[in-house]
């Protein structure tokens, strides 16, 4: 079962157009980029991060000749068949990893006239996996004691924050949900935020670069919230910037969520949860 990319090429002109052939090129690429801090370290395998072509095909939709004036529509179809032993990944726009599918139409024209070209991106969603994801709730408690990289534990104000995420293996079309209760806090809370982070890994046998960057930050509480009252955790996964968690030989795309609690004295408390996204 192979899906097809279908459509029409539309040519609109007042008069008849002379051309030397119209062609369509479909291409799927994974672009890997090294962050500036990694470049120096991994210069050795710098070459290995060249774009990976996932799919590529080219067809001629019209032989050299003339297109009559007015609106001409030429239908086309591409089978979405991956190259060789490669497989197709979902469209994803990240910082160091970009998975992008494009369709380009070229019209070659005789001398003294510029060739015309038009490119557009098309989105690819994976076929939903048949398997059902069983949500596994994750409970958490944050107190000064649970924190890791603290220099002076004694200087920290006391607080107890409990909560749970309904699941960490999330369906990408469904929001991330959960609840959070500020049970007590010596210092007033300034803000509670959900930070969605992408973790992109590029590399090969020689080594790899792993970078975590923020996708979005959603505030779920502002000001000194009522203690003991559960606050909903709710975040919609943004389109394009998220995709099902991806692991290949050359690169990885993973996601994490941080629950960030900002206290009034500007203490920043973060609790990290790795996520596994999938499409059902």
């Amino acid at each position, binding site marked *: 079962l192979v899906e097809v990319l279908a459509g029409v090429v539309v040519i609109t002109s007042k008069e008849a157009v002379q051309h030397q052939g119209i062609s369509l090129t479909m291409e799927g690429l994974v672009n890997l980029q090294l962050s500036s801090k990694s470049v120096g370290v991994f210069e050795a395998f710098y070459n290995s991060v060249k774009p990976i072509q996932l799919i590529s095909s080219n067809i001629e939709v019209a032989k050299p000749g003339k297109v009559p004036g007015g609106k001409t529509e030429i239908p086309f179809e591409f089978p979405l068949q991956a190259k060789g032993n490669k497989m197709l990944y979902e469209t994803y726009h990240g910082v160091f990893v970009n998975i992008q599918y494009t369709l380009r139409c070229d019209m070659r024209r005789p001398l003294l006239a510029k060739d015309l070209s038009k490119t557009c991106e098309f989105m690819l969603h994976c076929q939903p996996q048949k398997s059902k994801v069983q949500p596994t709730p994750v409970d958490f408690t944050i107190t000064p004691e649970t924190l890791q990289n603290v220099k002076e534990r004694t200087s920290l104000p006391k607080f107890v924050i409990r909560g749970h995420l309904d699941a960490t293996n999330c369906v990408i079309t469904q929001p991330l949900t959960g609840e959070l209760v500020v049970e007590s806090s010596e210092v007033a809370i300034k803000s509670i935020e959900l930070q969605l982070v992408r973790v992109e890994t590029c590399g090969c046998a020689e080594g790899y670069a792993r970078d975590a960057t*923020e996708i979005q930050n959603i505030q779920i509480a*502002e000001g000194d919230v009522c203690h003991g009252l559960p606050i909903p955790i709710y975040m*919609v996964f943004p389109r394009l910037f998220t995709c099902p968690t991806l692991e290949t030989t050359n690169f990885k795309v993973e996601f994490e969520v941080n629950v960030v609690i900002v206290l009034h004295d500007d203490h*920043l408390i973060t609790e990290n949860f790795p996520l596994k996204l999938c499409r059902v």
Partner: protein
Amino acid sequence: MGSVYSPNSCPNFPTRFHSIALYSVFFRHARVRKYGAELQRCRLDAVPVDLGDYHPLKPITVTDSRSRRGGRKGSTSSSSSSSSSVAPDPLSSMLEGTDPLSLFAAASASETPTLSHSKNEEEVGADFEPWSAKRGEILARFTTTEKLSINLFMGSDKTSSPSSAVSEKVRTRLEELDDLEEGSQRELLNLSQQDYVNRIEELNQSLKEAWSSDQKVKALKIVIQCSKLLSDTSVIQFYPSKFVLITDILDTFGRLVYERIWSMCSDPRPIPDSFSVEDVNDTAKETCLNWFFKIASIRELIPRLYVEAAILKCNRFLNKTGIQETLPRLTAMIRGIGDPLVAVYARAYLCRVGMEVAPHLKDSLNKNFFDLLASFRQIHGDTVQNQLVIQRVEIPVYLTLYSPAIHWILQCVAYRAPDVLLTEMMERCKKLGNNALLLNSVMWAFRPEFVAARATDFIGMIKDCDEAGFPKHLLFGSLGRSLACADPPESERLPILNEAWKVITKVRSPQDYINCAEIWVEFTCRHFTKREVNTVLADIIKHMTPDRAFEDAYPQLQSVMKKILTYFHNFSVLFSMEKFLPFLDMFQKDSVRVEVCKSIMEVFIKHQQEPTRDPVILNALLHVCKTMHDSVNALTVEDEKRSLALLINGFIRMVSFGRDFEQQLSFCVEARATFCNLEPVIIQLIHTVNQLAMETRRVMGGSHSRKTAAFVRACAAYSFITIPSLTSIFSRLHLYLLSGQVALANQCLSQADAFLKAAVSVLPEVPRTISVEGKQRSSEAFLLDFINSFLSTLLVVPDHPEQGVLYLVRGLLNMVQDYTWEDNSDAKVRVYISALPLLAAMSQESYLYTIPKVDSNETLYGGDPKFVAEISRLCETLIGQVLDHLKTLGREEGVRRQGSLAFSLFSTLLAHGDLRNNKLNQLAVNLWNLSHKNGHCDTRTSVSLSPTYTFSYKLLNDFHP
């Protein structure tokens, strides 16, 4: 009265008329009239009229084409379209359709049902007070003089974000929602409240502009920036107003988005209002989804919440259950707002949107309320207290900021909710400590019947409240509001009033006191007697008098007065309240005082059925009217004077001492002294006195005793000395004439003579133009009217024994002669012509009409030939004058006027002259010819005259074949 009769003022008419009448060559003979026989002859035969026959009073069939183009846009009722069978009454046709006011009224009347119909939301009826009604109130109430600032965070405070390396491109993309102008931050400081409102309005405008110029992202940015302002609680007193202003913008935005998506679905044909998800096409769905995705990625909590709430309705495009899933989620989301004031207003907004979009989803409304209760203790938390200290706002003031929002939430919750639920809510409020704020809103928002039935409970709860928190007088005010609309059980009423008043009377601040007392006056008036109301008034006076506190409370005091007047229509009860007049005395600002007096008089006129002589009422109302009268000064506008006079006249008409005529007269004397500045009142008084004289006559059956004769003379004297004080000349003239007639009817001959003589002597003063309804008009027509009616009175006035024959007639004619008539006017001659019938009538043996017990000239002279000759001489003079005038007209271009005058003299001669007299006959023929000479006279009109005329016309023809 005799002194007025100065002989000098009486001109010597006969001589003067003789001097003019030198050329008169013939006698004028009056035709002998048998009035009785003529009356018989002239009576119409009674003819049975067929329904189909022509009848002058039957509606004339006229097709009224004017009403068709009258611009009635189908809004008025159809009844007027039957105008074809209605006589073209100029007044009614004037009003029909084209009257702008009725057009408006009709338009609004026809609009209302369609509006309520188009909403088509069965769950929210007209009994739900809409938000729009609250807006203005909130804006007016929550104001500030402090400086405000608008902080449009065009830049981003991403400092807390731990992200290390984000490429510039992605960063831009992510933050484009947050930034209006990349990296800039506009902070507008030191705005006055008005500036602030203007700025917000500008933002509203730029939102609309951005939308219409297809800059959807910019529009969204504006909305986000605006809703961010709602998280700022500096200048907290202004917060409720800020909320109103900004939610207006959000409403606009929500509407724009909804309409846009709606129009996308109605591409081939519009989708119905009650569309389902299947009717929505994919493009519209995708657009809608895009909006929701964009909003879901808004970083900050409060803008995300508000903006999503604003476009809640758009969920209808996506799926059936969208709204009922979103509402609870948004409700829960509000828990994340730490500031209790910000949170409660967010809840109010959500409830409002929920009520509009899905009124059947009561659960989220209730959830909102219960969440509010759960986080209620936040209000007394440290964060809030610190903030109040910094802003120097006191707790009671701060708590009242919550009222509009909690009122609204509770109003939504309580709307058509079962009593069980309300009871549960109340119980839950009770359990919370420091719940005065909630209690207040419960009383405000729950059904008055519900509150009234539990009034005693509520009083108990109010008493238990903490004194330091929410002001108690506000609580009692809210309770009073409910009790003014619904009645508590009979047996509880007095205890309720006592308990409430016990607290109210302890309120220190006069302003707070009166605000609360004003509300409770209604309850008191509704259920109790004057005794209790009097006590309440006494208390109000006690509180408001120190330091002249009443000066700042006129609106409330006025409202107290209005409520009392609504419930007490019996004025003897009203004025027997000891404290009523002292209460009235508190209105010391003139304009307010007059306003109050006017309202009292309006109620009196409306509700007083029987004339009264109750001294309490009279004294009090005289005082009230005097107050109104005394407010008149040089600057008072004409309309105000008129309305005051109308009210005072209404009072005067209602005063009657029954058979005690003398007391009535002395009342009029007093009233005249009191109301001397209002002419209409003086006129009314003269009429009243004249009426009094006539009433006396009726009671005495026409013959006065010595005592009543003296009384009616006193009445005449009253009128005689009052009339000259009037400035309007025609009022004076008519009142002189009227009073003369009354005097005559009461056999006061010398008084009647004096009145009529006074009228004659006033005549020269009549100006040539008078002002009628603000326009200058020639007075001639009015003057002619008056003279004609004066002449007809003169028939029955007997000559004064010491003056010459026809003394008054001559006097009048001399005045007419000396009067400076308008140039080119025939008025003088027309008077002469109309005097002829009088003279003819005077020469009859028995007069057309007489006054019982008054001997007219017929009896005095008994047809003395000298008298008749005198009349004839006078007639000659008059005719001579007329003929003279006719001659001058012939010389000028006045031929048309000449013809018309000649004809009217001719018809007078025909009707009243004895045409058997040769000379007179000849004159009539000449006049006939003159009037027809220039062809200006329509023969048909001139011929179709009354039977008498026709008869005479035949006679004429017999003589001159």
